[in-house]
């Protein structure tokens, strides 16, 4: 029974991946919106873009990690 509950929890933790997808989409979309308004400033901000994407994505990876722990370690 406990193992089955852990699998349900792992599935619930996978929702976090979708939330991270929304976050990454927000970052990239806003960057594109800004870049199309002022293309000359876009090239200097790509590093910031990747840092922002990395921070948004990290939390989704944490959710993935939680589901991995529930699948294999609990």
């Amino acid at each position, binding site marked *: 029974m406990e193992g089955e509950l852990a699998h349900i929890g792992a599935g619930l933790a996978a929702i976090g991946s979708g939330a991270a997808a929304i976050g990454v989409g927000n970052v990239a979309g806003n960057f594109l919106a800004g870049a199309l308004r002022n293309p000359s400033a876009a090239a200097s901000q790509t*590093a910031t873009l*990747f*840092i922002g*994407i*990395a921070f948004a*994505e*990290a939390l989704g*990876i*944490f959710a*993935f*990690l939680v589901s*991995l722990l529930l699948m*294999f*370690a609990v």
Partner: protein
Amino acid sequence: MATETHGDEGGLVFHPMDQFIIKPLFGGGALPGDGSGGGTGVGLFTITNSTFWMFLAIVCVVLLMVVGTSKRAIVPSRSQSIAELAYGFVYKMVEDVAGKEGLKYFPYIMTLFLFIVFANFLGLIPTSFTTTSHFAVTVVLAMAVFLTVTILGFVKNGAGFLSLFWVASAPLALRPILAVIELISYFVRPVSHSIRLAGNVMAGHAVIKVFAGFAAIAAISPLSVVAITAMYGLEVLVSFIQAYVFTILTCVYLKDALHPHH
């Protein structure tokens, strides 16, 4: 973690996480550690497939940077121009993010970048082993960065490094609360730094393996071959971007250590 016996329960014949099992290269499954049964044969100094692929990554870096550039041609060969591109890319990144003072630490950051990029790319070779998908590897890399940056900050600024946590631009009443938050976020850095790399690489490889399972029905649906090809292409991109992100975050942390004042 996952074991090698699957399929009898009617699921996948192979498990997507099986590719991450660490096996000893030499010798059998005897256990060098404790006396009781049930070991995997991996001790503290056992040469495993992880050790082998990490070594191969270092060999590749040496081949590219030392052998590839040994001719020093005016018109560069292919390997030399790749080496020059990589050098220029990381150099510009360090200069842009960490500033001129950060360039002193460029060799360390270049080493990190090349090792991670080659470990990621070697892991993409089918049936190979991805060292950066293991937290044991990335945590060591991230802890090295964390300790380097912390010690460097105290050596360069003395106690002034602590002003990193004391946000001078905030209202005085808020500063103690902000200091606690800043302190927590500072110590979470190595955790997120390492888990980001290992988690991305591990997730990507597990997904590739799942799509490889779909390719078993390629005779019925040829689309599955297209799907795994697309997934593989995405993983090549992710491998590079994660190495880039790891390196650029190192530069950001370095900048914080060199200029702790907000």
